[in-house]
């Protein structure tokens, strides 16, 4: 194939390579085929991975303490559609990854399996159909897993629901039609504020997702100036 491929992380044209490179997503080292001028390389396994496997791999491997940075990295991968239910478990997984890297709560790799399995139960379109955006539910799921809440818990259960509620409120303010990227950004920002207020945990300063990297992929439904992440 003589086609030019563009790096999904920086959009620069990639060139062929036969050097050993490190996957920009999961950190795996292998013989590269296409590398961009900024040195980005996505390993073969990450390129073939479905969203749940990709999110788990990246969240397990990352040492990043900014959940927004992890989310942006993941959402640039072609497995994560512009809009889709994978955002529901992406939010909880990146929050748990950042919390684990901060050394707060006891979060092991099984936490990501739980986050993905719970997030998958939130249906595509649940924002409009149930009044519960999956990204907001993702914040509650992260709090629930971190605090080991169950339906029988007292404070932990309340905190999980409050987290979802705050995220929902902030996402609802954006308006519609839905944008899974804007909802993800809002959910992570709300979660950061929530963890700071309720647990005294400060994530490293969140990467600013503005102006939205994904606007070009959403030209028909983008909220444009109405969206706080486009401005």
């Amino acid at each position: 194939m003589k086609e030019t491929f563009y790096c999904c992380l920086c959009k620069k044209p990639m060139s062929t390579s036969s050097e050993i490179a490190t996957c920009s997503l999961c950190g795996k080292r292998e013989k590269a085929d296409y590398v961009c001028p900024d040195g980005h390389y996505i390993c073969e396994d990450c390129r073939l991975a479905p969203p749940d496997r990709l999110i788990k791999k990246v969240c397990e491997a990352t040492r990043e303490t900014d959940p927004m940075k992890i989310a942006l990295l993941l959402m640039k991968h072609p497995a994560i559609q512009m809009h889709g239910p994978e955002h529901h478990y992406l939010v909880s997984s990146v929050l748990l990854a950042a919390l684990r890297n901060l050394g707060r709560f006891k979060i092991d790799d099984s936490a990501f399996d739980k986050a993905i399995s719970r997030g998958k139960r939130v249906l595509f379109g649940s924002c409009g159909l149930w009044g519960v955006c999956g990204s907001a539910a993702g914040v509650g799921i992260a709090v629930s897993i971190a605090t080991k809440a169950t339906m029988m818990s007292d404070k932990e259960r309340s905190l999980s629901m409050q987290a979802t509620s705050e995220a929902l409120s902030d996402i609802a303010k954006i308006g519609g039609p839905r944008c899974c990227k804007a909802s993800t950004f809002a959910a992570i920002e709300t979660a950061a504020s929530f963890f700071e207020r309720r647990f005294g945990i400060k994530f490293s300063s969140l990467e600013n997702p503005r102006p939205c990297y994904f606007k070009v992929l959403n030209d028909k439904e983008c909220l444009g100036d109405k969206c706080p992440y486009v401005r």
Partner: protein
Amino acid sequence: MLKTWRLLDYSTADPKMNLAVNEAIFRSRREGLTQDTLRLWQSSNSVMLGAPSSYRNDVNHEACRKYGIEIVRAVSVSCGVLYQDMGSLNFTVAADATFLKHLIKNYQPVLSEYQILNEGFAKGLQRFGVDVKADPTGIYIDKRRISEALPLWFYDFLLFQGTIHVNTDLDVYDEVIRTNLRPIRKDFLASLSRELGKNIQMDEAKKAFVQSLEERLGVRFEEQGLAEDEQKLVEKLYRLKYGLSRWNIDSHEPFLSGMGKTTVEVFIAYPPTSMCRELIHLVNDVVSDMKDEVKIMIWMRGRGIYQHGPYPEISSALQAAKKRSIIPVIIINGELKFRESVPSKEVLKKALLDAL
């Protein structure tokens, strides 16, 4: 200068073949190989089901056996059960519908296109002195339906195939249709002959509809036959789709792109991995001596639906693979054949030959 449309006055006795002709002229129009087309045709006694309609529940099979009526299925977006006999005049419009929106005030997408075409045919009925009204769902005398259609869209292209009850035997119609979609009784149906108390010559009816459509659409019809490519496609569609109970009974159709070439869809990663590259190489190798009959479409994950032009055709199997992120896959004529592995050359070749 008036836009010229092809007028295709072409019928075969076989209702299945007639529907294959309709799809062939629609595909040909979509591909830009022919002009907008009006086809007028007649068929032996048959019930024409809309694509989503139920073969088992919507038709009285006993009555069909009694009268020797064939049950066929048309491509359409809507349910519908249309009866036709040699007294019915069938029409097919295969057109780029973008120009229709300028022919109506208060344009409403989809409904206005149906309204305009029904108005054109209604004007033809009015030439016989009957008082008819057209709306997007059909043409009516009072509340009795005299014409109905099954539409299909492909982006801006419209296939509008239907029936006008010129001399249709409404008693038989009433007996063969069994549907939960709408109450069908003689009181709800009308035919031109019943209204006028005499049979109408079909040539006379055709002439009236052609003239009235010319007036309503502001076009000029030029009589032409089927193009050679269309004829070939008719045969293929009959063999792979309309002649098979798999389509007529079970509503299961093969995925054929464009002018009906056997289609191999390959869904791969972006950029392609070594396995994806191997797969593409293999597919190209196997298809190299069948290039005239097989079309390869490589789809890369995350690159959007316009990777192959402004009117993408994507099989439901590919949509499912994309949704479930199964890569790489090979889909032949809409059937997922190989997933997440590279088949041997022999196995892939056999799968392709079977599809051909």
